[in-house]
């Protein structure tokens, strides 16, 4: 029982991190039709910035998190205008893949130039290092924190997309770009805002998940396949799809690591093939945003 509980907690926490990072990719893919392989690099960059802010500059964890997210968003926003805008649209997959792989390499090289090629940590505040008692069980506070942040992200995104005018316009544009443009929705600004949202989520996930997806030089390349898989299964542009896919992957992978070491990914990818074979547009397609 102890194992099952441990798997559940670790798996859900891991899944939440995958969700926070992947949902940003999912939203940009759903709206702008861009396969952004540099998404993992954005998460990585934020992680390194937070690590530097916390370790070298001595900022508190929360402040380091906010600073890293803001800095990443501000730094990547010009990229939307300079690079991404040229490759939006589903007819451009190959160019998207190549451009964003190129961008990933440049970011990876830049990070290693700035911060060095060693594994980085973001020291947790004392508040998050202990365990949290939940009746008969106790779980690591950090895991609880991550799960809480993930749940909060789901709720916040749900609110943003269902209850705000930004969300209404975003969903309209995902459903029918031509109609949205005809209705006078300014897609350029919408794209930019969505890109910033996606990057911000990647950055947040990169910082929060540093304990689970360690910050190492090849982070951006190592994990992008996972993020893409979540999006493909969840369906581009679907929040709840991404959440379900990420949590499933998190639990399956974690269970695999505990029970049959390293076989989790095998099952996950086998499931991925079956799901995509049956539902080529993802399991949750149809529910835009």
């Amino acid at each position, binding site marked *: 029982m102890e194992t099952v509980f441990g798997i559940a907690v670790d798996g859900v926490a891991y899944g939440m991190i995958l969700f926070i990072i992947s949902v940003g990719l999912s939203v940009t893919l759903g709206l702008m039709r861009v*396969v952004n392989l540099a998404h993992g690099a954005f998460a990585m960059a934020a992680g390194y910035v937070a690590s530097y802010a916390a370790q070298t500059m001595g900022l508190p964890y929360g402040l380091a998190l906010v600073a890293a997210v803001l800095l990443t968003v501000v730094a990547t926003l010009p990229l939307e205008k300079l690079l991404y805008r040229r490759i939006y649209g589903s007819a451009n997959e190959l160019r998207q*893949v190549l451009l964003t792989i190129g961008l990933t390499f440049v970011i990876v090289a830049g990070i290693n130039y700035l911060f060095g090629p060693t594994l980085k940590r973001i020291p947790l505040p004392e508040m998050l290092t202990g365990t949290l008692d939940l009746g008969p069980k106790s779980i690591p506070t950090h895991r609880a924190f991550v799960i809480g942040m993930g749940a909060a992200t789901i709720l916040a995104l749900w609110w943003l997309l269902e209850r705000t005018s930004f969300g209404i316009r975003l969903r309209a544009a995902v459903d029918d770009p031509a109609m949205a443009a005809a209705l006078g929705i300014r897609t350029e600004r919408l794209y930019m805002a969505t890109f910033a949202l996606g990057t911000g989520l990647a950055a947040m996930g990169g910082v929060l998940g540093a304990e689970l997806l360690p910050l190492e030089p090849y982070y951006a390349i190592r994990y992008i396949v996972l993020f893409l898989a979540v999006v493909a299964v969840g369906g581009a542009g679907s929040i709840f799809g991404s959440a379900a896919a990420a949590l499933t992957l998190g639990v399956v992978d974690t269970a695999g690591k505990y029970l049959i070491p390293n076989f989790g990914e095998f099952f996950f990818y086998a499931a991925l093939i079956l799901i995509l074979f049956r539902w080529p547009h993802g399991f949750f397609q149809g529910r835009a945003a």
Partner: protein
Amino acid sequence: MTAVESDKMTTNTSTLPHSRPALPRIVTDAMPVVVMAVGGLAAFWLFPNDLGLLTRILAAALFVMSLDMVLGYCGIATLGHAAMFGTGAYAAGIVAVNWVSDPLALLAVGGVAGGLIALATGALILHARGLTLLMLTIAVAQIVQEVANKARDWTGGSDGLSGIDPAPVLGLFRFDLYGRTSYLFALAVLIVGFLVARRIVRSPCGLACRGVREEPLRIAALGGSPRRYLVSMYAVAGVFAGIAGALTAITSGIVGLDSVGFSWSAEAMIMLVLGGTGRLYGAVIGTVAFMAIHHILASTDPFHWMLFIGLFLMGIVLFLPGGIASLSARVLPLVKGGR
């Protein structure tokens, strides 16, 4: 020109007859082979201490060429092509360790294995398009890698499969310590592979695949089945990728998990795009350029290399959508002096 002038409707054709090659086809056809053979032999004499690297380059070139058949001729964007390479490499390696050590037989084993996995997975995934297809190709490669990782008894898992000791080529040429036989063997395989691949892309099936890449609906209107063409060419490319994997296994004596890795698939795509798609010899150019520069830059600091190749890729996408090979098509008219 007279035929063109007689037809007033051809408003913009005055430039077109120039696009025909000035050289007879037999010359343009022989050129890549001659360049490969001469260049390959020259490298053999010039860099006797780097034959290991050069051999890897040749095998990689065959792999990238097989990717060109898929990406360049069929328009299938794949990030999982290493699945076929790795399957061929492991199949040849396992057979070599346990049963047969004749290098040509091992190449055949690799080719069959690569072709079969491509046929099976291609039939399964090629109904998809865009991101879904991209993900499926990645997923297939990840599964193959995972299987190779788990089947330790056969593949050596993460330690790699070693102890591949091929017999002399044709019973005559022993694989020597300096890698001379390996290199020349790989060069011969690459050139033969190029000739066969070129024959295939110029066949009716190759023609149909190019049609599918451009307008699948039109192929259907002509009475053809786009998906059947794609699966056929995917399987054929799988044979080439499998042979390239087997060639690597034979000449290096070891097969590692990275031969099925995502990075290897992505690198192959980069090499192909560097050299230019849809030309076959572009694959060879791209591979030689990529791996040679990699060797030079990465030996000092791998991140210099990543910066370089990253900027290069971005530059190509933004400023040279057709790849390096399109450079000649763009520069040539300028060289000809404004026509």
